[in-house]
């Protein structure tokens, strides 16, 4: 362990990132610029999340890393090993054991508690990016709370397909003020953001932005009065553990059109099958 500083980043960088995190917590949903560092993994693999995790992790933390709900995919395994090697902290696959969870594309099915921090990896932090290409202009729109363009997009979606087309990264308003991208989590997970007891931190490494949803902060998914926000539902329970009301992945099982739907959250599904009484959110 002597080759690296604790959690890889040098202390000055961690302090800089912690200052950005404090500011982000103070202004829920506001994107705080920070001096993103080169990390030993490529952009798009979670450089933002890794830097946030590295800055908040302590020797007594228990770390869990999720990729698309799973603990055993390449991205999750390598980030977990990275922190195990550079910090020596205990790692886990159990949501309820972890104090710090870095995740990509999912929020765990097991409800989070007040002593946990969830770190989300963000590819594109700016919710107005595809509506307004100029960064100077989007910052002004945030400052003046001018979100008409986003509403125009929702209107267009309904006009074209009868519902809002966004299925992931569904835009939300944090604390009745800032429009925020919740990172590419399915809209199924959006309700879990609302008044979450855990601290939610969002890190975008390439775009050099950090933002946060502090505990118990209201987070509202945008919708129209006559087209209310809804989440995905499945006609069948999980084929492995039988859970309903959870996010299911479709898995193709043969080349004859066979398929099954299973829990995307592997920890949740595994513990239910083991009879470990994992609670459903």
């Amino acid at each position, binding site marked *: 362990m002597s080759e690296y500083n604790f959690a890889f980043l040098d202390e000055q960088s961690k302090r800089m990132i912690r200052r950005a995190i404090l500011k982000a917590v103070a202004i829920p949903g506001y994107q705080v610029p920070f001096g993103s560092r080169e990390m030993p993994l490529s952009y798009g693999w979670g450089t933002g999340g890794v830097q946030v995790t590295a800055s908040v992790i302590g020797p007594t933390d228990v770390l869990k890393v999720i990729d698309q709900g799973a603990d055993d995919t390449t991205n999750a395994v390598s980030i977990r090993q990275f922190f195990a090697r550079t910090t020596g902290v205990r790692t886990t696959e159990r949501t309820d054991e972890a104090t710090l969870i870095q995740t990509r594309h999912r929020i765990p099915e097991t409800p989070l508690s007040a002593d946990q921090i969830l770190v989300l990896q963000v590819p594109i932090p700016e919710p107005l990016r595809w509506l307004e290409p100029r960064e100077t202009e989007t910052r002004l729109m945030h400052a003046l709370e*001018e979100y008409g*363009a986003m509403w125009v997009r929702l209107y*267009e979606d309904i*006009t074209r397909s009868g519902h809002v087309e966004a299925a992931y990264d569904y835009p939300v308003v944090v604390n009745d003020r800032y429009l925020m991208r919740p990172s590419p989590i399915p809209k199924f997970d959006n309700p879990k953001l609302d008044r979450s007891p855990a601290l939610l931190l969002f890190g975008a490494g390439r775009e050099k932005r950090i933002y946060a949803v502090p505990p118990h902060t209201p987070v509202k998914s945008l919708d*129209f*009065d*006559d087209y209310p926000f809804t989440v995905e539902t499945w006609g069948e329970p999980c084929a492995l553990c039988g859970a309903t009301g959870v996010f299911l992945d479709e898995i193709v099982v043969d080349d004859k059109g066979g398929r099954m739907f299973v829990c995307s959250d592997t920890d949740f599904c595994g513990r239910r099958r083991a009879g470990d009484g994992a609670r459903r959110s």
Partner: protein
Amino acid sequence: MMSDADRPLLGVRGLTHDYGGRLGCLDIGFDLWPGEVLGVVGESGSGKTTLLSCLSGRLVPTAGVVEFLTRDGTVVDVLRMSETARRRVARTDWGMVHQNPRDGLRMNVTAGANVGERLMAVGARHYGQIRAAALEWLGHVEIASDRVDDLPRTFSGGMQQRLQIARNLVTRPRLVFMDEPTGGLDVSVQARLLDLLRSLVAELGLSAIVVTHDLAVTRLLTHRLLVLRRGEVVESGLTDQVLDDPQHPYTQLLVSSVLHP
């Protein structure tokens, strides 16, 4: 206590803009009354567009005061109010019709969304009501209701200009700035658009400032006229009076330059 009708909607004093050595406009002052349509004429480069930009707060002039009487009866200083407050006034009480509809429309979203945008920006959150308002306003500007889900780029130039007008009027503004509203349209479409504008202005009791180089437009549309030359007002008065009996040599030149087929 004066009623709102006794107070000018827009008061302009000593408005001067200097583009670093080149003069945009010099010491312009006038009052615009509720329901009045003011024309600003002059040749290219005479400062018409500079004046319009200064009035609507998009350009900060070197000197001068622009005061606007808001809906709730308070007078605000357009040039010194906060950006937030100015944009709020611009969204609700003002409209801006550009010469080129592409500058005033979102070309990649449907006509309905174009009209609904201002409503959503000021807090409308009911899709059905927004759509109904869009359909109503398309009707006012004589666009068939079955075009509500079409993109503006499939519209003709005249329709685009009418769509732009609908988009501006949907929040019932009290003051509309128009920059060459009929420029770039052929004459028969121009005539229809002028007709429409005239009836809308009369129906809604709108005030408007119309910048144009086309004297025929001012004759039809405006009550009062400012003649601008090199950034200065050289003559002002009732439209018919200025056009029929021009006093200043430049106005005389302008009026006599109009071709009659």
